[in-house]
C-alpha cells in the first residue's frame, strides 16, 4: 500500500516574477534581460556564492530557485532530486556549438548536459542522494508522482526535491517543490497542476 505524501513548499520563477508557496513573492522589471533578472534576485536575496557567476543560465535559475525554496538550507543530505524539462540544455548546447569553429569554450562545455543542474544543487548543499533528470514534452505531474512514490516505497529517502526547470530562447519556467511524509497539501496530480498554474498570475 502506498503511503501518504505531501507537498511542503513550492517556488515558481516565471515572467520576471517569483511565487513562493502559492503567493507572489517578488516582481522584477519585465523589460530586464534574463541575466539582469537573475543577478537582481541574487542581490536582493543577499546571496554569497561566487560560483553562481560561472554557471550557465539554466543552473543559475535552479540555484536561485532552490535557495528561495529552502532558504539556503537542506538539512537532510539524503534528500533525493527528481527533475525534468522539455529542452534539455539546448540553450547552452547552442552557445557552445557557436564557439566550436574557433576556440571551444571549456566553461560552456561543462554545462552541456541538463543534469549538471543536479550536480550544482548537490555541491551547494552537500547532498549525497538519489537523483534523476527526465525529459518530457511538457510539465507532466505523473512522472514525478510515479518516481517519487517509488523512492519512498523503496525507503531510499525521507525527502524529495522536485523540479521543472525549462529555458529556451530566453524564456524560462521554473517550478520547484518539496515532498515529505507530513504536510498540508496532498501530493497528487490535481494539487501539482494547481500549484504549477496559479490562478492569480
Amino acid at each position: 500500500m502506498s503511503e501518504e505524501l505531501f507537498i511542503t513548499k513550492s517556488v515558481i520563477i516565471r515572467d520576471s516574477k517569483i511565487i513562493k508557496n502559492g503567493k507572489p513573492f517578488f516582481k522584477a522589471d519585465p523589460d530586464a534581460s534574463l541575466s539582469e533578472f537573475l543577478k537582481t534576485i541574487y542581490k536582493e536575496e543577499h546571496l554569497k556564492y561566487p560560483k553562481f557567476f560561472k554557471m550557465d543560465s539554466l543552473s543559475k535559475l535552479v540555484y536561485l530557485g532552490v535557495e528561495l525554496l529552502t532558504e539556503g538550507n537542506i538539512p537532510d543530505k539524503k534528500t533525493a532530486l527528481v527533475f525534468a524539462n522539455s529542452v534539455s540544455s539546448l540553450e547552452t548546447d547552442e552557445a557552445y556549438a557557436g564557439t566550436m569553429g574557433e576556440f571551444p569554450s571549456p566553461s560552456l562545455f561543462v554545462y552541456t548536459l541538463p543534469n549538471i543542474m543536479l550536480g550544482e544543487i548537490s555541491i551547494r548543499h552537500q547532498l549525497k542522494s538519489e537523483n534523476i533528470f527526465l525529459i518530457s514534452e511538457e510539465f507532466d505531474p505523473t512522472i514525478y508522482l510515479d518516481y517519487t512514490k517509488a523512492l519512498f516505497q523503496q525507503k531510499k529517502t525521507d525527502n524529495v526535491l522536485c523540479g521543472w526547470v525549462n529555458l529556451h530562447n530566453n524564456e524560462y519556467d521554473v517550478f520547484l517543490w518539496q515532498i515529505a511524509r507530513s504536510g498540508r497539501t496532498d501530493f497528487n496530480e490535481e494539487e501539482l497542476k494547481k500549484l504549477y498554474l496559479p490562478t492569480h498570475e
Partner: protein
Amino acid sequence: MSDLHTELKQSIIQQLNLEDMEVSEIENDEHLFGDGLGLDSIDALELIVLLEKDYGIKLTDPNQGKEIFNSINSMADFIEKNRIR
C-alpha cells in the same frame, strides 16, 4: 605594473566571470589557484584557451601549466618570452 599585467587581469576577470572583482584587487604575485584567487580546473582550461586566442601560444606540455599559471607575474613572463602576437 606593465600594460601586459593589467591586460591579463582584465582578461581573467572577464573570461572567468570573476564578478565584482577589480583589477586593483589582484596582486601580481598572488596565487591564481588554491588559496589565492581560488580558480578551479575549468578555469585552468579557460586560461589555456586565453593564451592561444590572445597571444598565439599553444601549450604542448600540460605539466608546464602549474608553473605558468602560478601568478600574474609568471603568466606575464611566459607570454613575453613566447608570444607570437
